[in-house]
Structures are given as structure tokens and as C-alpha cells.
């Protein structure tokens, strides 16, 4: 998933921020000073106004590869399983229950009787169609690799095998058999992802018959979906309106009638609109501007929780002088990560020298030292440099953004102070930067990674030799072997232990320098209930409701429903 969002839209929003700063300075406070902006809903009851931070590329579950599309798909489609709104634990959705084979490679899902929004019965064939389509090279899905969990998925996506050969089949209309490539323990969580939603093949066939381009099937005038809401209006780059879908399998539990989704890209504009009551909640895809974080954190409608994403610097391990692992480790130890998050990033980020965020699916983090200047200096000496001045010039490249610049400058100073090494900074516009990273045309470059599912593998895969996102030029067959073994390991605890060994092995070679784990900060009007913080920032609308009768007391949400309560 994309990670530049928190920082990139800064260019113009900084300017808008100037105005907002004036507003703060003037002490423009609303009536209830405990909250930021108005606390009276400006819309009819049972309606929610949110932001989606931009026009989605696709609303087609198989083709979507961005958070803006994902937010709409998650709420207008329903998959086999759904994520619990607080714990993200997989719970039944279209599948009521499932059987797992002894080797944990075959899942048999039993589907409930349900309908598409046009009344057509939904069958296991709709899932088979979707999963094959996700991998079919003709679909050209940027997230086709998600389907590599299915047996034969990689071959199908390469075009080396027909989509029909995929390990997915409809035993009958209500039974779906899924065969996996590896016995992945996170597969049920992963199947809650939007790529795996069913596709209304009857609609696609109908459009083809009528000579309408397939790409238009998700437009409101055509779309057929099976989720809690259906898309009824889509004004390009203005707003979408989603209305309750009476044919949704769990329609009885959907509380809001309508959700109005604006597409405001500037985070500062979104913040102003929140203050004015144009948004009840800026939504999962809107970040709060970092420069106002300290100020906003004082309000009771401000919420913060850890996020499944890491911020790090790639090291090109074949470019001298950074081909020396001792020097790489010295650099990693010379960064005062506590100071970095406290004084520079200021968003409550969790300082970390590990790649995998702590506590992912029971994973025990390595807890590598956050800062050790003495050891860093000793490593520098061992690397063959009596002083930092003897180290040849190093350049740190980052994509143009105020936030990345501040982090880079702080670290530049730390390396100068602790090791005496002079590092030059270079910023590049995003697409130029991406091509620099891809061509390994750098010494150090910043990057971030959001986990697609709650499992260490989504992070550890980054360092495997086959991974196209590994920009370090570092590879180790022993590491690859450990990952492969771990994913074939049926015992979850033994699997996590193997991952731990693998992560330690990789970070000992230091092909990247982890800096911190992201957090997500949110503003939610006090009358909006049913948004629980979770580490993937996923908040299904079906659990959200408006309660403007109650006095605006924060933290008064009832506990989220237990998984068993929802599975009916």
C-alpha cells in the first residue's frame, strides 16, 4: 500500500496551514472548547459525512490498488470473511463456516444464501470468477500478486497457465473450495482484503452483451454489489453517496442510511471542513497535518493508535562505502530514535530498530537497541575508519516532502554528531525517486511499508531475494530458506520463531535502517459512535452510528461486538 500519503500533499496544504495557524492564534474556539470545531451534526439523522482524500483509481475489487478505492469497496462489497471492527480478527461474512484440511492447505467455505443488490442470487461461482479474474493477466491488476496465495496463482498471473487451473473451485452453488500454495496461517485475515470480494459476473456478461465497456461496471448507473451499502452517486472528484443495501446479508445490523463521501485531497482543507461540521470524521485515508498534531492532541475528539507500517531507510549494500556491513550497523546505532519521534515527527510514532512492528499477530519483536552511540563508534572503528571524516561521501535520497526532509535533516545531524560522518541530502520528486529506488541508483533512500495483513511475513518478504520491492541489493539464501520453511510450518508458534530468526539474520546484515512504527491520528465527532482504533485503520461503516441525543462524552462507545455475536 502507498506510504507517501502522510507527507506528500504538504506543498499546498502548508500554505493553507498558514491560514489555519492564524485561526489558532486568533483563538477561534467553538462553543464547546473540549472539541475541535462544531459538535452539532449538520445533516439528517442516520447519515454520515466523511472524506476519502481523493478520487479512487478503481472501484473494481480485482483491480483496485489504493486506499481510496479500498474504503468504498470494503463497504459496498462483502467477502467470504470480514474483519472484526476492533480486533480485525476474521469473522464469518458470506461464508458461515469453513473446514480446514489436515495439511492446512485446503479450505472449504460454506456460503450462506445471499443476493446481489439487484436480487440475483450470489453463488460460489462468483468467487471463483473473481479469484481467476484477479490473476488473469488480461485483467492487469496491480494487486495480482495477492492471488499468489492460491495454488497455481503465480503461474496463472504469469500467463503460463490458464485461469481455470487455479486452485479454486465451486463444489456447488454454496460451497467453495480453495487450495493454497502454502499453509499460510494468516489466510483468513488476508481474505478480508478487498481484492478477494466476489464479482457480479452476470453484470459483466450483461454489459458485454449491450456493448458497454467493462471498465464502466462500477459506475453508479450500472454497479451491482453485495455489501452493506451500494454506490448511488459518483460525481467525479466531488463526492460519492452510498446508501444502505436492503439485500445485504446482515442488513438488520446496518445502522446508517446514507454515507456521503467527499474527495478532499488537501489535509488542511479537510481539517477546516471537519471544524465547520462538513465532515463527521475525516475518514481512514485522511492524515492530520503533522504541524497541528500537538495542538489537536489536546482535544477530546482526537484519537491515536499504532498503525501496521514501518518507516525505514534502504541501504544499497553494493555501493561503497556502504557495502561494509559494520559501517551500516554503525549508522543504524547512531540514530537517536526516541528523540526523532519526540521532536521531529511528533505524531506519537513508536521508535523501533526492527522491521516488523512489535506485536503483529503475536510476533515477539527483536527489540534491537534504539540508540547506542558508544557501540556505533566502536563499529565504525572496526569497519576500518578511525574517524567519521575518513568515510567517503554518502548521499541520502528522499522523496520531496517537508516531513521526510525534517527526518533526514535530523538524522544527518545525528550521524555528524555521533560518528562524525558527513551525509549529503538529496530530494527527488516522487516518480523520479521511485525510478531511482528501482534502479538501485542510490546509497541510502527513505521508504515506508504498510502491512497488507497482520502477519510478520508482509514485512519480512521485503528482504527476500525474489521480492521486487527489495531495493537493498542484499540477499541471503539462508534468509529465503527460513521464510519458505516458516510458511510451510503448520505450528503457528514455531512459524513465528522461524521468522524471528530470519529477521535477526537480516538485520544483523543491516540492509535497511528501521526508524519507527507509524501511528494513525484521527478526529471523530463525539456524536459518531462505533469507530474503534485498530492497527490497520479499518472502520467498516456498518458498525458506525450517530448518537446526537447523548451528551458528547468521549470514550463512551460500548465494547465492539464479539465475533460470535455477528456470526449468525
Amino acid at each position: 500500500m502507498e506510504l507517501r500519503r502522510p507527507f506528500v500533499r504538504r506543498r499546498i496544504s502548508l500554505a493553507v496551514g498558514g491560514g489555519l495557524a492564524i485561526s489558532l492564534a486568533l483563538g477561534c474556539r467553538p462553543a464547546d472548547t473540549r472539541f475541535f470545531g462544531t459538535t452539532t451534526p449538520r445533516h439528517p439523522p442516520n447519515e454520515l459525512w466523511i472524506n476519502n482524500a481523493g478520487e479512487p483509481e478503481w472501484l473494481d475489487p480485482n483491480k483496485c490498488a489504493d486506499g481510496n478505492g479500498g474504503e468504498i469497496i470494503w463497504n459496498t462489497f462483502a467477502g467470504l470473511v470480514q474483519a472484526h471492527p476492533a480486533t480485525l480478527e476474521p469473522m464469518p461474512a458470506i461464508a458461515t463456516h469453513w473446514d480446514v484440511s489436515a495439511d492446512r492447505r485446503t479450505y472449504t467455505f460454506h456460503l450462506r444464501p445471499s443476493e446481489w443488490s439487484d436480487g440475483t442470487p450470489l453463488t460460489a461461482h462468483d468467487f471463483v470468477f473473481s479469484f481467476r479474474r484477479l490473476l488473469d493477466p488480461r485483467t492487469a491488476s496491480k494487486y495480482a500478486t495477492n492471488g499468489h496465495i492460491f495454488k497455481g496463482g503465480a503461474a496463472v498471473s504469469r500467463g503460463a497457465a490458464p485461469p481455470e487451473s487455479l486452485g479454486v473451485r465451486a463444489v456447488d452453488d454454496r460451497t467453495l473450495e480453495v487450495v493454497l500454495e502454502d499453509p499460510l496461517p494468516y489466510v483468513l485475515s488476508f481474505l478480508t482484503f478487498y481484492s478477494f470480494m466476489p464479482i457480479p459476473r452476470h453484470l459483466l456478461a450483461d454489459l458485454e452483451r449491450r456493448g458497454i465497456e467493462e471498465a464502466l461496471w462500477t459506475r453508479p448507473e450500472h454497479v451491482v454489489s453485495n455489501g452493506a451499502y451500494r454506490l448511488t452517486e459518483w460525481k467525479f472528484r466531488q463526492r460519492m453517496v452510498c446508501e444502505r443495501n436492503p439485500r445485504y446479508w446482515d442488513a438488520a445490523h446496518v445502522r446508517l442510511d446514507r454515507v456521503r463521501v467527499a474527495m478532499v485531497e488537501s489535509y488542511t482543507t479537510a481539517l477546516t471542513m471537519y471544524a465547520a461540521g462538513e465532515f463527521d470524521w475525516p475518514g481512514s485515508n485522511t492524515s492530520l497535518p503533522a504541524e497541528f498534531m500537538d495542538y489537536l492532541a489536546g482535544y477530546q475528539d482526537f484519537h491515536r493508535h499504532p498503525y501496521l507500517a514501518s518507516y525505514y531507510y534502504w541501504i544499497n549494500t553494493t555501493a561503497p562505502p556502504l557495502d561494509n556491513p559494520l559501517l551500516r550497523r554503525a549508522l543504524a546505532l547512531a540514530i537517536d530514535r526516541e528523540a526523532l519521534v519526540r521532536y521531529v515527527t511528533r505524531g506519537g510514532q513508536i521508535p523501533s530498530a526492527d522491521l516488523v512492528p512489535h506485536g503483529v499477530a503475536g510476533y515477539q519483536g527483536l527489540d534491537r537497541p534504539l540508540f547506542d552511540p558508544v557501540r556505533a563508534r566502536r563499529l565504525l572503528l572496526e569497519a576500518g575508519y578511525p574517524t567519521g571524516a575518513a568515510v567517503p561521501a554518502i548521499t541520502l535520497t528522499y522523496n520531496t516532502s517537508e516531513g521526510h526532509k525534517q527526518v533526514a535533516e535530523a538524522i544527518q545531524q545525528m550521524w555528524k554528531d555521533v560518528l562524525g560522518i558527513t551525509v549529503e541530502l538529496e530530494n527527488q520528486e516522487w516518480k523520479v525517486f521511485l525510478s531511482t529506488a528501482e534502479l538501485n541508483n542510490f546509497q541510502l533512500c527513505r521508504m515506508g511499508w504498510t502491512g497488507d495483513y497482520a502477519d510478520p511475513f508482509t514485512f519480512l518478504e521485503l528482504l527476500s531475494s525474489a521480492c521486487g520491492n527489495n531495493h537493498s541489493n542484499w540477499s541471503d539464501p539462508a534468509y529465503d530458506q527460513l521464510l519458505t520453511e516458516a510458511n510451510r510450518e503448520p505450528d503457528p508458534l514455531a512459524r513465528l520463531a522461524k521468522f524471528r530468526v530470519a529477521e535477526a539474520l537480516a538485520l544483523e546484515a543491516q540492509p535497511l535502517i528501521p526508524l519507527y512504527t507509524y501511528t494513525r491520528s484521527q478526529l471523530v465527532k463525539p456524536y459518531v459512535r462505533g469507530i474503534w482504533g485498530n492497527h490497520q485503520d479499518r472502520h467498516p461503516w456498518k458498525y458506525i452510528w450517530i448518537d446526537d441525543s447523548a451528551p458528547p462524552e468521549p470514550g463512551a462507545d460500548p465494547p465492539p461486538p464479539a465475533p460470535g455475536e455477528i456470526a449468525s
Partner: protein
Amino acid sequence: MTRFVLRRLAELVPTALVIVAASFALVRLAPGSPFSSEREIPPEVLSQLNAKYGFDRPLPEQFARYLGNLLRGDLGLSTKYPQRSVNEIIAAGFPVTLTLAGVALIWSLLVGITAGIIGAVRQNTVWDHAAMATALVGLSIPSFVLGPVLVLVVSLRWHLLPPAGWGDWRHVILPGLTLGTIYAASIARLTRGGMLEVVRSDFIRTARAKGLPERLVIWRHMLRGGLLPVVSYLGPAIASMLTGSVVVEKIFNIPGIGPYFVDAAFNRDYFLVMGIVLLYAFFLLLMNLLVDVAYFLLDPRIEYP
């Protein structure tokens, strides 16, 4: 006159061709591709995407094909918004930008000319100084400061108008004022200067000598002469209102085409970049032509071959 206009229109064609070729070359020379992201895209997928947009062809062939499509009025497909054609995107956004620029233009003319006349007619009085000082302030405040301040006061403090968005007349006022003010300031200064220049000319003396009332002298003769510099300024001003709406459209989240001008280049949305550049270039050339025609209509001294 007709011959002049026709000749100028004919000149548009080679100019447009140069613009198309230059922007095509520039956007393709930039590193990166429309499909690159920090997540690796499988090569099979990439080749499918490239084939869909014809990026797998040699560049000269792509250029020829683009020109061919252009002649048929087809600007191609957007890569950032893959379900939309560039034609559709421009058709959706350009009227919005035009509306915004229109409001800004009316505001700037209304305020600018009024202040300019006051300044010229009451030259070197308190009125003149007040009008010109206001113009100076207006000229000095950039839109990215004025916009948020207006939002702060009008939307957040007084709750009179929405802070951002697009839909009805209430949404257009604040961005229109924000965009127009800086031009109002220039127009005020130009009007004042232009009128002061003609105030001592022979035809004004003649007008006064033949006993015209002062009101008519001002409105019929002085203003017409005084507006010439304003008219020549309006061409580029309208063009720059259209292109310069980037910031205002971002601040107020207006779905015009302004933001594409920057974002499409960042996204390497090749066809969208070209479409927008062509549209802007066309408008710039058209505005310049209109200015020349307006000159001809306003100033009887000007003759065209």
C-alpha cells in the same frame, strides 16, 4: 479585420503543433512511468498496461498515433483515472474552472475599475490614496493567505458560507474573491494610470470644449481610453486566472482542472498532461487574439493590415 483574424487563426496550427511536440517530448523524457509505485508491479501486468495505452510502441509511432487521435478530437485515456478519458475529465472540470474564473473576473473588474476611476477622478485626494493603498494590499496578499483567512472569518467564525467544496452558488463566492482580488488590484492601478494618461490628451480637451457634461467625458471618453491598458492586461489575466486557479482550487477543493496541471505531471499521466497543456495553450493564444480584436474596437487609432 477578418483577414487579420483568419491569419492569426491559421497561425495557431503550427504553434499548436510545436506545443504538442514539445510537451510530448518533455513528459516522456521525465524519469519514471505512469504505473510506477513503491509496490512492484509484475512484469506481465506492466506489459498489459503498457499495451493498453500503446506505450509499448516506438515513440515516433506513439506520437503519430497521438496526433491522429488529436485530429479526431480524441485526447486519449488517463492513466491515473483509468476509467475516464481525458476528454471526459476536461469536460467535467473545465466548466468548473471557467465558472470560478468568471466570478473572479467579474469581481476583479467591478472592484478594480471602480477603484481606478475613483483614483483618477479624485487624483491625489484621500480617496485616491485610500483606493491605491487598498490595491497595493490586495496585490501583496497571495491567494494562499487570503483564501484561508476568508474561510476562517466567513465560514468558521460567522458560519455564512461553506469552507470548501462545490455544488451551489454559495461555494463559488469565497474562491472567486480569493482568485479575483489580486487581479482587481492590478486592474485598479492600470485603470487609474490609463485614465490619467488620456486626461490631458487633445480629444478630452475637445470633449470638454464642446461642452459635454463631466460625467459623459469620464464615461465615454476617458474611460474608453483609460481601459486600453486594462484590456491588454485582461488577455493574460484571464489565461492566468485559468491556469493560476491551481492553488485556489486546492484550498477550496474545487473539482476544476487547475490541480491536474500539477498533479498530472507528478503522476506522469501522459495524455492528461498533454490535454491540459494543449487546452491552456489554446486559451492563451485565443485570449491574445481577442485582446487584439478588442484593441481594434476600442481605439479608433489602431488599424490592421
